[in-house]
């Protein structure tokens, strides 16, 4: 008996082919489509839990960009995101997974607050520069703690930097609830207010402060450093091919330590600018997770400093929008759920940057 001919499966085959080059258009188009798809899936989540996604997205958009106040708040949130985004991206450039920006931010804020609260003899014009220096050092030293075992014996820095976030926040909490609590503060866990000389001035009659200038300058400096200095070149080579770097005689241990110092320092400055520019005192929470959002920003921006600037404003808007949906009874965590979804889609979308889909007729040419 002749075997019957069975047509198996679909008449087409789908195959992935490697692209040799990535096009500029794709570099922009793919992230945009990815973010759009993430928002669509987010809408499904919101809908399934009995909320109106259109109304919620509208509220978020209006809250973040619909008024002068909204825009200024978006910029306020963007400031620490720019700095921590840069911090994370410079480490990622070298394949160093510093996910401790959150803790480094807290330690920078703590060290800067020490200057503001306990160095009353410092001449006024020196207060902010000293806070800046201490903020940088606070974050840098905190980053150096996991950097040393990573550089010398290869201890997984992802885990250690992350665990140190918890330690830093507890350390910070100890001082806010304990020795640094303002005795005149009606028992609230707040430090005394910083003196005038320890405050970054604000701009345009809003809460936007000079931390924005620090962030913009940092973007330019990091860009030049990565693109046009020998050190930046070494960082890129080590990140892309540690073996090639080793053969070329680059000192990897030293570079790990230096990059982590810079990375932690930038996050520390973010903390300094938050307390000096915004809260003007220590309070139990000074970051809603900027150090984690920074990871998404860095990846979405493909570690490019100017793209980080742009993406930070968008994510600042997402955070502000997240607060504004609380009026509709949704938790601020909605914004973080959307952030996670965005990163999923961006990661998935990268495939199409590296490969192209080829659909062929089965048995055809």
């Amino acid at each position: 008996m002749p075997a019957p001919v069975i047509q198996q499966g679909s008449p087409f085959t789908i195959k992935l082919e490697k692209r040799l080059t990535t096009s500029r258009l794709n570099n922009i188009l793919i992230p945009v489509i990815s973010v759009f798809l993430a928002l669509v899936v987010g809408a499904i989540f919101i809908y399934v839990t009995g909320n109106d996604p259109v109304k919620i997205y509208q509220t978020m958009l209006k809250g973040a960009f619909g008024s002068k106040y909204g825009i200024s708040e978006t910029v306020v949130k963007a400031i620490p995101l720019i700095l921590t985004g840069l911090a994370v991206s410079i480490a990622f450039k070298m394949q160093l997974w510093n996910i401790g920006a959150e803790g480094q931010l807290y330690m920078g804020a703590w060290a800067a607050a020490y200057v503001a609260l306990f160095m009353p003899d410092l001449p006024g014009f020196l207060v902010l520069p000293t806070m800046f220096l201490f903020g940088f050092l606070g974050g840098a030293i905190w980053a150096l703690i996991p950097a040393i075992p990573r550089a010398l014996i290869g201890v997984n820095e992802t885990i250690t930097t992350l665990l140190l976030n918890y330690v830093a926040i507890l350390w910070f909490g100890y001082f806010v609830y304990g020795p640094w609590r303002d005795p005149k503060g009606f028992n609230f866990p707040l430090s005394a207010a910083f003196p005038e000389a320890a405050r970054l001035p604000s701009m345009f009659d809003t809460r936007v402060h000079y931390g924005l200038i620090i962030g913009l300058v940092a973007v330019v400096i990091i860009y030049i450093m990565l693109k046009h200095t020998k050190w930046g070149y070494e960082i890129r080579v080590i990140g892309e091919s540690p073996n090639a770097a080793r053969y070329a005689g680059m000192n990897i241990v030293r570079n790990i330590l230096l990059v982590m110092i810079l990375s932690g320092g930038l996050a520390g400055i973010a903390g300094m600018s938050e307390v000096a520019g915004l809260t003007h005192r220590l309070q139990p929470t000074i970051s809603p997770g900027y150090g984690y959002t920074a990871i998404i920003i860095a990846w979405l921006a493909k570690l490019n400093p100017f793209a980080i600037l742009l993406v930070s404003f968008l994510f600042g808007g997402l955070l502000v929008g997240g607060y504004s949906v609380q009026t509709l009874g949704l938790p601020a965590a909605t914004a973080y759920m959307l952030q996670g979804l965005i990163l999923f889609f961006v990661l998935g979308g990268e495939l199409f940057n590296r490969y192209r889909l080829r659909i062929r007729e089965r048995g055809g040419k």
Partner: protein
Amino acid sequence: MDYALVTAVLAAAIIAGTPILYAALGEILAERTGVLNLGLEGMMLVGAVSGFMATIATGSHWMGLLAAMIAGGMVAAVHAVLTITFKANQVVSGLALTIFGTGLSGFLGKKLIGIPAPSTFSKVSLPVLSDIPFLGPVLFNQDPLVYLSYLLVPLMWIFIYRTNPGLKMRSVGENPGAADSLGVNVFLTRYIYVIIGGIFSGIAGAYLSLAYAPTWLEHMTGGRGWIAIALVIFSTWNPARALIGAYIFGGVDALGFRLQAMNIGVSSFFLNMLPYLFTILVLIFATMQTQRNRIGAPGALMLPYDREDR
């Protein structure tokens, strides 16, 4: 310290170690096939909240456990698609999973905060065994999920080291190219164990919200997912060592809690740092140890597999 206190602390160490143990066992399976999943924290949170929701909806904590397992597996499947099929960076995908899971659990759990679980995994003392002096009250006066973990560890050990599917699983993680040429389906194997890993994390989360706490709190994992990842390195990917490690970590946790209750004059902020600092120290020690003995991570850990690159 008197006898009753010692057994109480040790029993508490087992309870505190159990969620970390489940998460670590799941991660061992995933990493054994070459897929690092840093999303344990997120998967545990999703497991904790969905287990809690299902328990409220059905009134049964076993249904809650089932829901947590399904939810954990589903979230892990996202990681599997991204890292196995889409060949995305495993570190970043895992971080995305943690951020997403934290957000999703906060989103879903908003209305549940402060509600006690209607039905929980409570202690069942095993007949005869619980009468053994010392060991009885420590080991055999626990809840069913603890007993399940006692069974799971030896079964997993046998599976990994003594069975054919276990061997195939390890080969995929050590050398996927060779495994492929011997006819092992690398992609399918990775999918299966990454998803099983997620199911385990779901159990770990359900343990927190249905046995340990038992209630839902935002961020209730408090870094346990990360401690579990460190524990996997400490365990050298061996479930038996993971068990020992988990109870040591649990012991540090329980001891800190106990010291807090005894009011020894050290701020609770510092006592709460103990598990994290201890984990970091252990990780440094374990890294030195594995390097000296040349037993490292699975050979293909963090490397996406591409047949064309073979």
